[in-house]
Every structure is written in structure tokens, then in C-alpha cells.
């Protein structure tokens, strides 16, 4: 490893590092605009100049590789003057409209000109001005402010895989734009807003909403998909103003998908803010006591086989746990199901339902086979990792089922189930590829687990992996791609019925109690049934309910969520529930009191204690669960013929919060326009 000296400090850095990284390792701050850890090196802003011994000129440290024996200075007069000069040039065409710029307060240019710049400019001519460019409903552009760091271009090309941003014209006339000012066709597009070091690309929905110092910041977990991206929720007063990514190298690096970032405006519309009960066929608002009395009056005749619970897609672990307890102890029923559509899962062993390759290790894979999965829409962050595997590791990607554009190259094998059988029988070209690959992985989506074919798909893939010894402790190639944040937590709690038979039973004609815990997508027959809906937003299922109980959204409560790898993470309360709404676990606890059969969890921490005692797996946060691949059992299944059909998937409305978000609606419209005009000029 090369040894260098930075400001008199001897330091050893890995081969292939840059001088900038060496300076950082020595604890020296180097200002920069174009350099970014996760993007390729451009070296065009010149802000990172340092002095190097034996070099007559200052060198751009971000692009200079470290060599043994280099002597670097970061605090000499030469460096100071160089930085001042670069800053003066950068500000020549920058408008200095900080008071009306949304980046103000969190602007790299503002901060660095305070620290490294000079207090006045010698430039007397007119500044250039650049027309605004349309980049879609999320990205607001004020291109006069652009300093041409090209971070957005590199992000779109390298991480998002949509090379649509570029720099046109040249010299003084250079402008950053998308091709013919089209919407950026990516689910990661809004990350360019975070990357932009100035106010050229800012957030359109958040425009002029708040200043960064007015916001209360809460570190939390995203629930828009099953990835469990780490986020920061920024609130002003009651309202969630914006959501930003938080760095977690094991999961989302520093990106989040557009839905995670912008669905939050759905939190303030169409909320259920008071309990409702159905009186004379109409829902009318009431207080909690009335609602509970109404429930206890109507609930008496249902118990055991007549009581059903459906858990929705955004429910936290604690609520699911107390819900299960409520059903088991008070209603003496175990008819709880978290799947709102019929697909197959085998809960007998964790390996059967987890994404067993850690997300951070997807980039190490060299062969990826998607079985009825569209990671681009179902788990955008996972898709970015697969793309990374292809770029860094030349991973080959194959897909069973037509999934459309995934932002990287893949081969569509067709959608016949017989292909899986051929692979298992070594009569398909993939068989040899799997044998020769070092770290292959199968990703099975919910579409491939449809109830008719699911067991066959899962067991055949397991058979293929067993033949190739790929179900080991160190590399377990079986991966299930869940779509919902609550899925794995519910599986840990065993909230599922055999072959989703609960979903069949709730639609027969017997009168029964159906308790919907935020379940909006399941189709319910309201006739003869007593339906309780507990949730956050008005939707089709709250309309047909007999009682509606207002719950808390994911930003309004402390709760545990388990991501698709089986990693337990804690979402934090960032704001308050609306109106009369309460934390979901409190509602169920209060309901048990009202029914005269109290569950004695008086505080959230007692609830958690009980949870940890019954299910110790939730005790350890932010770590991957232990492998249980050794105990995996295999079933012999008879051949099933058919096709893997991708379920239609409306990315911008997968859950009730996103469905109520105005921004998500605009994104969908922009996407439709893009689809219509993409083939024209």
C-alpha cells in the first residue's frame, strides 16, 4: 500500500486511491463539487486543488492517483489562492440568488464560497442566463445556477441506467438538459436533486415549502417497498415536508426511489381522522367510546371460524403482533392472512421466503435469473444493485417472463414454466451457465408464485440450486422478491393461512367478522359480514366497512419493519397522528379493554418486551438473520405446465399513501406522455 504524507501526517492508503481520499483519511477536508464517492471521476470543477511536492502547478486531487512517497499540502498559500481563484470563476456566471433559491442553507456552493472563497468579484460584464429545462414533474430546474459539475449526467448514466441527461453546446454556451427536454424515465430520477451541489436541480413538489433549518429531522425507515430503504423524514409542524435518503451501505447506499421520496404528500390528504360507524346504511363519525360500544355489540356472535383478519401492506410488526394476540386470545381464531392476493409462500423455513443474498452482495453476483420478477418496479434499489453487478462484474441477467426495460441488458428466456424443468434436467443452456458461475442468484417475484404455479416454481428452483450446491451458508442463491414492507414481518409472525384459504373463506356467504388492518387491496363482499377497517386513508375497503378506525401512518408511530432480507429496522415517529387517530397497537389494546378481555400491554415498551420474548428474531436490529439453509426441506412436486405472467403493477400507486399522492399521479401522467411520444422526435 502506498505511503503518502499529507500536511506532515504520514498515512497509508489502499492501492488505487486518489489523493483526495488520502487527504480525507488524514482528516483534511477537501472542497469539491464534481467528485462524488459513488460516481465516476470527472475532474472538471477544479475545486479540490492541492499542492504536491515536485509539481509546479496545483493538482486536482480527485483525479490524481496516490503514488508512494507523495508529499501533499492542503493548507499552503498556493492552495488557498487556487481555491479562491476557482471559486471566483465558478461564481462568474452563478446568479447569487440565494434568497430565492431552495438550495439555500444546504448548498455546497454557498458553504464553500463562505469557507474558501473571496468576498467580492472582479467580473463586471453581464452574467449569462440559461433557459429552464423540463425534466419531469419531480425535478425543478433553474439552469442559470448550474456550475456544470456533471454529477447528474453521470448519475443518470451510471447508477440509474437511463443515459438521457447530457451537456449540449460548448464552452460558455454549455447547457445541461435531457434529450429534447423529456421527462427522465427512471424511478431513481429524484436522486439528482440530492446530487446537485447547487440549486440548479431542486425538488419541484417541495419548491418554496420550507428552509432546511426550519425542519425537524427524524431518521426512519421507508415502507413503500420491501427493501426498507433508510430515510430521513423532514417535518415542519405537523406536516411531512420531504423525505431524503439516509446512507446505509448495506441497503440503499445513498439513493431512494422516487416513490419513497415523494409519496409523502399523500400523508396529508384523504385521511381518516375520526372513528366512523355505519348507522342506517351510512357511515357517520363518532368518538372512540361509541365506536368500541358499536363493535362490542356486533362482535359477540363471531368467534373462532367466523372471525377473519387481513393484514395490509404498511403495517408494523408490533401492530401485527398484538393483532395476532387479539385474534388468538380474544376471538380464539387463527384466520389471519397478510397476502391480499393469492400467491404461494412456504413459511416452514426462513430460507423459503427471504431474499437470501444480502442486498450489498448482489454486486458480487455473476449470473442473475429473474423468475417472474420486475425488480425495477417492485424493488428499485435492488434493481440498481443488479445493474451494478452487471457493470462491475459483467453479470449475465436472464428473465423468465417479459418484464420490459430494466435499465440494463438481459435476455428474455420466454415465459414457459417448462424452461425451469429443462434447467433442472440439465437440458437448457442455463444449466451449464449455473454450473460455471461462481455466485449465481435466482430472484423469484410474486408473479411467479401465483397459487396455481407457485409451489412448483419454488420447489423446482430449490431443486436446481440443490443440485448445484447453491443453498449454502455463505451463498444462498434462493431469493424471494416481496413487494410489501409488512410481508417478511408477517411471515416471521406466521400470519398466513394454508394456500391463502382465508381469502377463499371470506368470500363465502356465511356471516362473519372481517377485521381489515390497513388492507386495501383485498376484494371483500360486504353482504352479511361485519367489517372493521383500521387504517389511515379512505379507500374502497373503508367505504364498505361497518366500523372505520383511524390509525397512524408510518411517519406517525414508532414501529419495526422487516425488509426482504429479513433485516429488522425501526421506523421512528416523526410527526403526530391526524385528528382523533391513534397508534394502531393502542387501538387494538383499547378494543380488547372494551370487550372486557384486556391484553395487558400498557406501554409500547412492554409490548415490545413481549414481542421479543415470543419472537426473539425481532430482538436484533439492523443485522441479517442467521442462515437456516441447513434445515431446508424439499418437496417432490408434480409437473405444472403454464406460463409465468407478470401481474400488472402500477408503480405509482402500490399502496394507499402513494395512491393518494398528487405527485405520484403527476409522475404517472408524465410517464404516459413519455410512452406515447418516446418513439417520435
Amino acid at each position, binding site marked *: 500500500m502506498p505511503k503518502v504524507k499529507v500536511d506532515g501526517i504520514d498515512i497509508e492508503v489502499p492501492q488505487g486511491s486518489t489523493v483526495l481520499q488520502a487527504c480525507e483519511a488524514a482528516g483534511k477536508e477537501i472542497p469539491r463539487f464534481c467528485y462524488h464517492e459513488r460516481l465516476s471521476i470527472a475532474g472538471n470543477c477544479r475545486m479540490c486543488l492541492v499542492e504536491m511536492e515536485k509539481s509546479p502547478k496545483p493538482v486536482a486531487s480527485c483525479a490524481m492517483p496516490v503514488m508512494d512517497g507523495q508529499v501533499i499540502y492542503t493548507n499552503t498559500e498556493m492552495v488557498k489562492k487556487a481555491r479562491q481563484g476557482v471559486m471566483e470563476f465558478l461564481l462568474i456566471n452563478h446568479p447569487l440568488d440565494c434568497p430565492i433559491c431552495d438550495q439555500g442553507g444546504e448548498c455546497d456552493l454557498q458553504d464553500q464560497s463562505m469557507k474558501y472563497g473571496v468576498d467580492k468579484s472582479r467580473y463586471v460584464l453581464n452574467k449569462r442566463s440559461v433557459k429552464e429545462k423540463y425534466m419531469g414533474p419531480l425535478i425543478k430546474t433553474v439552469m442559470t445556477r448550474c456550475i456544470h459539475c456533471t454529477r447528474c449526467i453521470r448519475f443518470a*448514466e451510471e447508477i440509474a441506467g437511463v*443515459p*438521457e*441527461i*447530457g*451537456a*449540449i*453546446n*460548448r464552452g460558455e*454556451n454549455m*447547457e445541461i438538459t*435531457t*434529450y*429534447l427536454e423529456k421527462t427522465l424515465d427512471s424511478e431513481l430520477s429524484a436522486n439528482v436533486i440530492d446530487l446537485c451541489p447547487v440549486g440548479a436541480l431542486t425538488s419541484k413538489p417541495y419548491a418554496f415549502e420550507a428552509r432546511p433549518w426550519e425542519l425537524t429531522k427524524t431518521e426512519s425507515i421507508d415502507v413503500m417497498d420491501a427493501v426498507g430503504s433508510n430515510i430521513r423524514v423532514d417535518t415542519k409542524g405537523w406536516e411531512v415536508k420531504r423525505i431524503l435518503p439516509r446512507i446505509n451501505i448495506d441497503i440503499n447506499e445513498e439513493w431512494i426511489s422516487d416513490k419513497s421520496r415523494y409519496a409523502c404528500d399523500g400523508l396529508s390528504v384523504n385521511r381518516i381522522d375520526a372513528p366512523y360507524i355505519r348507522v342506517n346504511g351510512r357511515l357517520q363519525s363518532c368518538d372512540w367510546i361509541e365506536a368500541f360500544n358499536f363493535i362490542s355489540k356486533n362482535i359477540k356472535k363471531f368467534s373462532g371460524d367466523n372471525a377473519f383478519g387481513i393484514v395490509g401492506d404498511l403495517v408494523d410488526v408490533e401492530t401485527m403482533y398484538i393483532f395476532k394476540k387479539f385474534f388468538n386470545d380474544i376471538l380464539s381464531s387463527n384466520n389471519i392472512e397478510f397476502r391480499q392476493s393469492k400467491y404461494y409462500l412456504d413459511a416452514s423455513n426462513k430460507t423459503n421466503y427471504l431474499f437470501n443474498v444480502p442486498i450489498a452482495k448482489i454486486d458480487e453476483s455473476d449470473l442473475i435469473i429473474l423468475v417472474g420478477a420486475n425488480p425495477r418496479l417492485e424493488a428499485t434499489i435492488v434493481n440498481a444493485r443488479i445493474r451494478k453487478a452487471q457493470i462491475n462484474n459483467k453479470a449475465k441477467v436472464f428473465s423468465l417472463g417479459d418484464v420490459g426495460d430494466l435499465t440494463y441488458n438481459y435476455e428474455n428466456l420466454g415465459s414457459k414454466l417448462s424452461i425451469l424443468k429443462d434447467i433442472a434436467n440439465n437440458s437448457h443452456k442455463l444449466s451449464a451457465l449455473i454450473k460455471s458461475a461462481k455466485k449465481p442468484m435466482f430472484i423469484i417475484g410474486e408473479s411467479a408464485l401465483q397459487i396455481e404455479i407457485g409451489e412448483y416454481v419454488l420447489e423446482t428452483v430449490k431443486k436446481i440450486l440443490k443440485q448445484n450446491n447453491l443453498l449454502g451458508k455463505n451463498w444462498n442463491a434462493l431469493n424471494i422478491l416481496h413487494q410489501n414492507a409488512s410481508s417478511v414481518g408477517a411471515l416471521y409472525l406466521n400470519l398466513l393461512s394454508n394456500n391463502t384459504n382465508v381469502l377463499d373463506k371470506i368470500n363465502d356467504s356465511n356471516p362473519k367478522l372481517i377485521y381489515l388492518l390497513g388492507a386495501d387491496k383485498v376484494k371483500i363482499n360486504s353482504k352479511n359480514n361485519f367489517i372493521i377497517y383500521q387504517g389511515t386513508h379512505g379507500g374502497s375497503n373503508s367505504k364498505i366497512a361497518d366500523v372505520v378506525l383511524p390509525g397512524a401512518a408510518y411517519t406517525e408511530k414508532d414501529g419495526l419493519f422487516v425488509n426482504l432480507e429479513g433485516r429488522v429496522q425501526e421506523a421512528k415517529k416523526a410527526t403526530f397522528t391526524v385528528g382523533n387517530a391513534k397508534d394502531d397497537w393502542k387501538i387494538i389494546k383499547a378494543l380488547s379493554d372494551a370487550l372486557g378481555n384486556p391484553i395487558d400491554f400498557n406501554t409500547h415498551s412492554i409490548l415490545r418486551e413481549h414481542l421479543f420474548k415470543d419472537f426473539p428474531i425481532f430482538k436484533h436490529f439492523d443485522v441479517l438473520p442467521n442462515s437456516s439453509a441447513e434445515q431446508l426441506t424439499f418437496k417432490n412436486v408434480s409437473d405444472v405446465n403454464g406460463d409465468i405472467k407478470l401481474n400488472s403493477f402500477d408503480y405509482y400507486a402500490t399502496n394507499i399513501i402513494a395512491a393518494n399522492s398528487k405527485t405520484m399521479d403527476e409522475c404517472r401522467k408524465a410517464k404516459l406522455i413519455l410512452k406515447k411520444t418516446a418513439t*417520435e*422526435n
Partner: protein
Amino acid sequence: MSGKHVEANQPDKFEFNNESLKKIETILKKYPTERKKSAVMPLLDLAQRQHDNWIPLAAIKKIGEILEVPYIKVYEVATFYTMYNLAPTGKYFVQVCTTSPCAIRGSDKIVNLCKKYISEKESHLSKDGKSSWLEVECLGACVSAPMMQINDDFYEDLDEQSAVKIFEGIKNDTLPKPGSQKGRKGFEPNKRLTLVKN
């Protein structure tokens, strides 16, 4: 000069003709298959030659498809270089040199005449659709500054009178002879020979 003028009225389709397709084949042979995007500049040139001296957006798309390069990358190249035209140039494409030697010798007067006789903005067609003009950097004829290039010919040693004559000629399709408009030969000194005299 501001950014490149891109024609608003774009044709729907662009196809390379057979002759160009043959040339593309030869051009692509010059580069390894995995680096075929290097052929973007010769292909843009080919498209421009085939399509009346300007490149429509449909051609940019076509080239992107042939070379498997994102459209924006082709567009970046096409807007970067001045010799690619993204708007119709007309029958007479006038390029006026405005680099220092020509500027000292009064190229701004020629530019003003262009504005008067051709069109107010550069890269925009004249009213009769016959010509357009563009300010360019040094064309390498500083010895006979100021000068301009019309299609492939240099018109040098210009002054306002001779320039007006040329612009009138554009209108009537009667261009004067290319070369020095003062009748200089071989660009010997303007007044008297000094070096080779004795």
C-alpha cells in the same frame, strides 16, 4: 454566439440512402465492434451531406440506433461542433470569420451586412430560403482578412462594397469569382513587393 439553432420544423423520417449505407459499412470497419460509437462523427457528417447540408433530429436518432449510443450522446456531439448544422442552410451557406485578425480588419461590418442581407439571426434561413450565415472561428486565411466562406469557396480581402456585391450575387445566383475580391494574386503584400525585389 449562443447555443446552436435547432430547426423547429423537423422531418418525420430520415433514412440513409444506399450509397451512404455502403459508406457506413466502410466507416464501421475502421473501429473495433465494441467501440463502434467512435463512428459518430463520420456518420453525422454523412447524414449532413446526404440531407442538404443539415442534420435533422431523425438522423440523430437513426445514428444512435446504428451505433447503439443514447440519443443524447449523439446530440451532444452534433451541438458541440460548429461544422454540423442542425437547421437548413439554404443553397448558399455563408460562414464569416470573426477571429482576431479578421475582427481587426473589420469583420463586424461583414456580420452587420449578413444581418441586413440574409437574416437577423445566424443559422436562420433568409426570407427567400436561399441562404443562411454563421459566425465561425479562424478559417486560416488571416493574410487576406476579412474573409468569408460560401459553401466550399473562400471570398477574401472583403470590404463593405465587395461584400454587398457578393450578397446581391447570392440573390441573383451570380456570385463573383472566389478568392481575393481586390484582385490580389498569391497574396503578395498589398502595396509593394519588399522581399523578392532584388
